[in-house]
C-alpha cells in the first residue's frame, strides 16, 4: 500500500490544512470554518484537474451542513458514476464526515447501512490525529478516493455494478 500512501501523501500536500476548529453549532466560527473548507476543496479540485484526476462533483446546502454530488471511477475505459452525499455531524470536525454512496447500499460488505462507506481502519486514527487540520477535502481524498479504487473494480467484476450507458 506504499503506492497509495505515496499518492495520498502527495494529494495531501496539495490540500491546504485548516485552522479553525468549529462545528455547525458554533455560530460565530462555523462560517470561518466553512470558508476554509471551501478554499481547501477549491485547491483540491484545481489540483485534481491539473493532474487529470478529476473524479467528483460536490455542492452543499446554504449552511454547509449537508453535501451532495457525484463521483466517478473509470475502469476498462468505462466511466462508472455514483451519487454521493453526507452530512456534517455536530461533532465535526472532531469526527470525520460519514460519506455515503446510496446506490451501492447493500451491494458490498464494506458499507454501513444507508450506503455509508466503511472507511479503512487507519483513516480514523489519522483523522483523529489531525483534528482540526483535516476537512471535507481530506475526507474525500483519503476516504472516498481509496475506497472507490479498491471496491469498484471488485464490484464490477462481480457484476454487481453494471455500466450504464449515457452517463453524463
Amino acid at each position, binding site marked *: 500500500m506504499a503506492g497509495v500512501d505515496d499518492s495520498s501523501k502527495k494529494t495531501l500536500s496539495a490540500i491546504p490544512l485548516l485552522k479553525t476548529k468549529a462545528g455547525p453549532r458554533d*455560530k*460565530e466560527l462555523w*462560517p*470561518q470554518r*466553512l*470558508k476554509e473548507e*471551501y*478554499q481547501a*476543496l*477549491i485547491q483540491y*479540485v*484545481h489540483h*485534481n*484537474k*491539473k*493532474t*487529470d484526476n*478529476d473524479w*467528483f*462533483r*460536490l*455542492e*452543499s446546502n*446554504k449552511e*454547509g451542513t449537508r453535501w451532495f454530488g457525484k463521483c466517478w471511477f473509470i475502469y476498462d475505459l468505462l466511466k462508472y458514476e455514483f451519487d454521493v452525499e453526507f452530512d456534517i455531524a455536530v461533532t465535526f470536525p472532531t469526527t470525520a464526515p460519514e460519506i455515503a454512496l446510496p446506490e451501492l447500499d447493500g451491494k458490498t460488505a464494506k458499507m454501513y447501512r444507508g450506503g455509508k462507506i466503511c472507511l479503512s481502519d487507519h483513516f480514523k486514527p489519522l483523522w483523529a490525529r489531525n483534528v482540526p487540520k483535516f476537512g471535507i477535502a481530506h475526507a474525500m481524498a483519503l476516504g472516498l478516493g481509496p475506497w472507490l479504487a479498491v471496491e469498484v473494480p471488485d464490484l464490477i467484476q462481480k457484476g454487481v455494478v453494471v455500466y450504464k450507458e449515457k452517463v453524463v
Partner: protein
Amino acid sequence: MTALDWEEVKRLAADFQRAQLSSTSQTLSERNCIEIINKLIELNLLDVIFTTDGKEYITPQYLVKEIKDELYVNGGRINLVELSHTLNVDLSHVSAKAAEVERSTPGCVIIMGQLIDQNYTTHIAQEVNDRLKSHGKITVADLTRTYDLPSDFLQSVVEKNLGKLIDAKQDKSDNRVFYTSAFVEKNKAEMRGVLTAITRPTQVANILQACDIQERDFYFAFESLTEEKQISGVLTAKQGGNSIFIPYVYTKQQNEWVDNFYKQNHYLEYDGLIRLGISEPVMFVRRHFPNVGLIELTTCAVGPHLINLLENSVEETLLTGSYLDTMMMLPSVLTTEDIAKLVELVLKRCKNKSAGNVQILCETVLVTEKFIQELMKPFHEKGIIQQKAEEVVASGQYMQILVERKLNKGGGGRDDHHEDTKAERREERRRKAATGKGGGGTQGRETKTKSVKKKHFEKKGGGRGDHEDSEGRLELFTVDEVEAELGKQLAEETEDLVKELAEQVTPLLNRVAAEEAARVFERSAATGAEARRKHHSQLQEFVDMKLIEIRLCEKGLKHFPSNGELQAKLGTHLVKSVGGDVANALFGFIGREMCSRSVDWEATSIEARAKVLTEISPDQGREHLTKLHKVLTSQAPTVDEFMATVEQAFAVADLIVKKPDKKKEK
C-alpha cells in the same frame, strides 16, 4: 460580521462549483506520449524526426524551416554538423533535408558539408570586389584560404560575378588570377618606367626584386606593354625567373660596338663578345654578319679583309722568297692554332706554284725554301763549313766515325749509300707534299690537310732522323751553334723562330758539311799515311838529335867537380829543358795518334801532357808514359833516371833510342 462571512462562504461555494465545472486539462504521461507516437510512426500515420536527445520530435517540414532560418541567421553559410548540433537533430536527417533545401531554393548549394545560399555567394563576390579594390589583385588560392571553400566553387563564383559585382579582369595565362584594371595600369606604369630605365641586360628576377612585383604580374604587364609597343627591349625567355630583359638600347649599342670593332679591326673576338654580354658569340656572329664571309676560328671570326691582307703578304713573301711571321700581321688574340688554320687556308688560295716551297715554323712563320738557302749562304761564304769539315777530318774524328760505322753495321760504304738514299727519299717526299699543296685546285681539301700534317710529322721525324744521323754520322754543326750563328743574322727575330730555323737548317748544313768533309777526307786520305810516316820520321830525327844533345851535355857535366852541387843542378836543368822537349814531342805525337786530338806537339806543355795521359787507355802504354811524365815533374830528376824511362816510353810510339854513336860524339 457573520453575514459578511456567509457572503464569503456563498462566494466560495460558487467558486468551488466553477472550479469543478471547469474542463479537465487533458494531459498524457510522457511514457504514453512516446508510445502513442511510436505507434503512429509504426503505422506510418505520422512522419516525425527525433531530436538527438530523444526528447523532442519535429516534423520534416519544420526541420526544413529551421534549416532555412539557421542559414539566414548565420549569414547564408552554415556547416551541416554545426546545424545538427544547434537543431539537435541527427546529421543524417539534417543533410537529407539540406539537400532538399538545396534543390528547392535557387542559388543554394552544399559544399564540403556546408550549406551556402545565394546571399552568401553575393556576399563573397562583394568582398572579393572590395579586396580587389584594396589589393588590386586576387588569386583563387587566396580566396580559398580566406573562405575555406574549394577553389572550383570560388572560381565559378568569381567568374559568374565578373563584370557584374566584381570589377576586374581575368589573367589570360592563368584564369585563377584576377586583376583590377587599376592594378594592371599601375603595374604597367611601373614596368614601363623600370624597363625604360634599364640600359643593360637584367635578370627578370632582379627586376622583380627591385620593384617588389610578382613574377606573374610582371609578365602580364610586360605582355600588354609589348602589345602596345611601349617597351624598348625583349625578354630572352617567356616566364621563368632567369630570363633576361635586354633593352634595345643595349642591343643597339652592342651591335654598334661590334660593327665598329669589326670595321676597324676586321675580326671579332669571341671573348670580347662574351665580355659584351653575348652569350653565344659564334651564333651571334653568324646572325649578325650573314653574308660577309667571316671565317670562324676557335677564338674569333676573321673578316675577308684580313684574309686578303694575309694572302697578299703571303704571295709577296713567296715571290720575294723571304719569310713572313704571320703572327705580326694578325691580331694578337688569335691563337697559334687559329693562325695555322688561316695560313693553311691562305696557302690553299695562293695559286702560286712556288707555294710548295713553303714551310711553316713556330706554327705561324712562313719560311720559303729560298730563304733557308739564303740563310745557309753565310755558312758557305764565311767558310765555316769548309773550316768545320777540315777540322773534323784533321782531328781524325771523321775517320773514327767511319770506323765505328763499319764496326757497327758492317760494310760502311753500302751503309753510307743507304743513308743517302734515305735522305734522298725524305727529300723527295717533302717535295711531293709541297707540290700537292701547290696544285691545290683539283685535289680535295682533305688530302691537303693530310699533306700538311704529314709535313709536320716529317719535320719531327726529320729532326729525329738528324739525331740518328749525328749518332751514326758526324755532327759537324750542333743546333745550338747554328742557332747562335742565325741569331746573329736575324737579330730582330724571336728566339723560338731562330731555334726552329736552326733546327731546320742544321741537318742541311750537316749534310753539306759532311759532303765537304768527305771531300776533304778523300783529299787528305791520300796524303794522310805519308804525312804520318813523315811525322814519325821527323819526330825520330828530332828525338835522336835531342838525345845526342843530352848525352853530350851529360858528358860535359861530368867534367864539373864531381859530387859538387852544381853538377846535380845542371843535370836537373838538362832533363827539365831538353828532356821536357823530348817528352813533349812524344806526348804530342801520341796524343794525335791515339786520342784523335789535334795537339800541336811542338807546343805541348806539362798540363797538355797530363791531359794526354788521362785520355790514353792502359793498353796503349800509359804506364810507361806516366813514368816518364813523373820523372820530368819530380823535384830533381837525374839524367840516368830520364834515360831509363825514356826508352820504354819511346817504345810506345815505335821510336828507337839509338846507341850512342861514338863518331858523332866526337
